[in-house]
């Protein structure tokens, strides 16, 4: 039985599989490779995922949700219809839909998966991703870092040894990884990134500036209009790469504006983001103790690296052209499939070994090391960019006389004060009474290949051991919660697969109708009415013919680059 490789992205998700003939990208029910990570409720109250939902984001904004990957590992709940979902549950719905597609495509049940996560995801976010996989009915074998996956795809594809700098900018996250490929070993030297920097931020910046210019308050605009503006700016963002300026009609309230997006304007609006691209690159180079001349290949990964501005900036920074000959949208999924193949002990991959690093420093809370009983200071145990799996021990001691227990708090982050780092969990251990500093405790952190942390605490004087696999993280679920989640998800009705293609056409037509005017509107309404009439007749041949015809017409009418 095959293991699925899944790229669970902010904007799009893809699944692929390692076969004897190499990597195979799996088409979804609509025949696409990319499934937009959008979830919505249709008119009959069942859940739709992917392209249809993305079209309905414009026409039914309130019942549709997108760009929720950033909420992974947080405690936010998002409302669709009448129910609230966590980002983890939403992700599991996407994964479930991908699973169905893959099973349908391969004709066999699939139970295991390798899921990719941004390299700079913290422990909470990784746990949430793993949980999403489990809720979707997968056994999650491995979480693989996205840039690492991309590097594997490149390394195997090019078969060239050397040091790679991978820049992975997707819809919502930016990752930088430096890794070396030699003698069948893929060694990650350093990872850095920004979890709040991606293609959607560029669109956000454009929309914010546009509304500023027009003098409209974002809060007062109806969600339908706002989503339409987002879509139009997404199109503009893509067009600007090839043309100097691009004109659109923007509707706000009851007014219409002619908006011209120019390259100059886009450059100004995205400059702050470009400056943020630089920082993680510098950090990664520093941690890997390399300078830019020692990098053999710079690789661009992720849909957002298609942006001309980004390429130009990278070119300027390094004085050379980056590689991007594998489709930046699918390369991560391909890498995930390779990892799945490795996990499956596939013969063709037998001589490839991957070593990765932990992206953040892991530590505990201690009192001010310069004296005093003031708490809140960070004590690193595993330094960032240490090769994993790894296991480190540090010793801590009691801080006042007759202390009876020690609270070992577990944090992740780089700040010297714990309150600015991410809290992961805690263990409380009881120690025998004694004078200050007499009782010592060994704290062992073990970080595994999936980027998940385990903590062992041993009291030196008694030899008593405590163990904790970090589970009680914010956004994590207890067994009971998990069951409740599963029950909730099992009640969700998915829309039947068969009629999906027809519905995709209607959803697209409605979306174009929404953003068109006058004659064009009427024309689209006519076409859709005709199509619905044909659907009622239930003649498969006729429907197929009509579908092809209408698809063509809609394609010509569509001004937006939305997928």
């Amino acid at each position, binding site marked *: 039985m095959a293991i699925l490789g899944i790229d669970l992205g902010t904007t799009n998700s893809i699944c692929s599989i390692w076969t004897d003939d190499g990597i195979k990208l799996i088409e979804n029910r609509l025949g696409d490779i990319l499934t937009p990570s959008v979830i919505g409720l249709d008119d009959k109250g069942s859940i739709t995922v992917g392209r249809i939902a993305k079209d309905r984001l414009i026409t039914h904004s309130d019942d549709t949700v997108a760009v929720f990957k950033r909420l992974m590992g947080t405690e936010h709940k998002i409302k669709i219809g009448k129910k609230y979902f966590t980002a983890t549950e939403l992700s599991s719905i996407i994964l479930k839909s991908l699973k169905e597609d893959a099973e349908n495509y391969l004709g066999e049940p699939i139970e295991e998966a390798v899921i990719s996560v941004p390299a700079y995801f913290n422990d909470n976010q990784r746990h949430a991703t793993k949980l999403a996989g489990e809720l979707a009915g997968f056994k999650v074998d491995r979480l693989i870092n996205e840039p690492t996956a991309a590097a594997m795809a490149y390394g195997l594809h090019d078969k060239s040894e050397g040091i790679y700098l991978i820049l992975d900018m997707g819809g919502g996250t930016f990752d930088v990884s430096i890794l070396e490929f030699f003698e069948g070993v893929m060694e990650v030297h350093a990872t850095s990134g920004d979890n709040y920097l991606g293609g959607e931020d560029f669109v956000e910046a454009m929309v914010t500036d546009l509304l500023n210019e027009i003098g409209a308050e974002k809060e007062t605009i109806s969600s339908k209009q706002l989503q339409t503006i987002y879509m139009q700016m997404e199109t503009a963002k893509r067009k600007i790469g090839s043309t100097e300026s691009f004109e659109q009609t923007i509707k706000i309230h009851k007014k219409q504006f002619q908006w011209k997006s120019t390259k100059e304007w886009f450059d100004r609006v995205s400059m702050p983001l470009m400056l943020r691209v630089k*920082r993680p690159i510098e950090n990664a180079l520093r941690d890997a103790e390399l300078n830019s001349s020692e990098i053999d290949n710079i690789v661009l990964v992720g849909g957002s690296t298609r942006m001309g501005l980004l390429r130009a900036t990278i070119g300027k920074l390094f004085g050379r052209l980056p590689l991007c000959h594998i489709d930046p949208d699918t390369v991560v999924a391909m890498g995930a499939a390779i990892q799945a193949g490795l996990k499956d002990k596939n013969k063709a991959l037998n001589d490839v070994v991957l070593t990765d690093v932990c992206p953040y420093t892991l530590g505990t809370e201690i009192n001010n090391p310069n004296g005093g009983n003031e708490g809140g200071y960070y004590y690193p145990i595993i330094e960032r960019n240490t090769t994993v799996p790894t296991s480190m021990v540090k010793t801590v001691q009691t801080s006042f006389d007759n202390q009876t227990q020690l609270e070992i708090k577990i944090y992740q982050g780089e700040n010297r004060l714990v309150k600015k780092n991410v809290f992961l969990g805690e263990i409380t251990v009881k120690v025998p009474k004694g004078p200050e500093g007499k009782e010592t405790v060994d704290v062992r952190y073990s970080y595994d290949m999936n980027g998940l942390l385990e903590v062992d605490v041993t009291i030196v004087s008694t030899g008593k051991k405590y163990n904790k696999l970090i589970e009680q993280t914010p956004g994590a679920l207890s067994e009971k919660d998990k069951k409740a989640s599963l029950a909730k998800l099992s009640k969700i009705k998915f829309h039947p697969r068969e009629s999906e293609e027809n519905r995709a056409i209607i959803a697209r037509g409605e979306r174009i109708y929404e953003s068109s005017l006058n004659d064009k509107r009427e024309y689209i309404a006519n076409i859709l009415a005709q199509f619905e009439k044909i659907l009622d007749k239930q003649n498969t041949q006729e429907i197929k013919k009509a579908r092809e015809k209408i698809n063509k017409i809609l394609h010509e009418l569509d001004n937006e680059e939305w997928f």
Partner: protein
Amino acid sequence: MSIWDVLEIPETSDIKTIKRAYAVRLKEVKPDDDPKGFQRLHEAYKSAQKIAKYNHTTNDNADELIQIQNINNEINVVDTGTTTYNTSGNDAISTHQINFSYDEEVPDTLYTQQFNDEQAIDEQISDEQQELDRVLSLVDKLLLDECQRNVIKSWGFISSSTFILDTDFNWQLGLSILKKLLEIDDIKTSTLNYLNSLFNWKDDEEYICDVIEDKWCKTLLLRINDLNQRNDPVLHLRGSKSIKKINKIQDKIFKQYYFSSDARRMFALLIDLCLIFFVMHSLLSIYQLLFGGVEEALLKKITFSFFIILYSIYTWSFETSYLQSTPGKFLLGLRVTDKNFMRIRHLRYFFRLVIMIVTSFMHIITVFINALMNQRYLHDRVSGTYVIDYRRSKKEHEEYYPE
């Protein structure tokens, strides 16, 4: 076991040999199958690499060391300002120092030196310096224009400057602009936020304030709120606008409190009832003493409503007081609280009371239901209040109850 034994090669300074040996051994001790063995191997590999590198540098460079020092001096004389785009080693190192400078990693001399250089460069003006002057003169002009200086769009010329991505240029320009801003009173926060997004002052806050030596510098930077804006994950969610945050703090509080057991509550109720009956009877007998006898039938009627009124006043006055408990509950260490384990407000208490009285009319059914309610009775649940065992909670979770 030496590192060379782990790598299974004789001692060598050849990095290629070390790498090959590591690759061979790695396929035997895969990180998945043998984490401990892998960790040992990886440590050996890293140490071997370090030793090899060290040997290389000492062997090759021992003679050249003095020469290098000379060259370095020469480089210092030549202007450092012209190296711009190629992020070569020097560049990377200097950014390191800038980013972390306030962590006392870098002596201040670096910067004074840079400013000295600035003067030296005056003679042979580089492109970068020219550009800096050009941009700063535009900034001066803009700052004089009261209408335009708070319009973000009019600051656009900064981002189109050719050197804006260059670390040194960015830093110097940012510092100069910040100094100029300190002389202006009415800079809006939105303008500050925009400029901060270009120069990232906020990250180097402490260091910048040291360099600028202006008491208003901190105040100005304090107004910038970039982190909240950038890191709010909800900000970019598309579609559904209805979001709620589950309050996990609640869980933590829950853990430190125990609800009262049924027996304790019953016992407390008994004590309270006795007290109320005692008070009621004494009041009635006083009444009878003063105004003579009351008819038996009337007395029966009055007694019931009198009891209800008395009970309400009694519980209300005690349980909303700072004691948070009636004498009976107090004796048994119980407390009545609202959802946040705080003292109940009067309106909520009224609600609780009404429900309590209504439910108590169906006594047997209520008792039966409440027995199944897992220590949170009907009136507790409906009115959103708790009866907790304060004494037990305090005993078992001492750490949460500061003296």
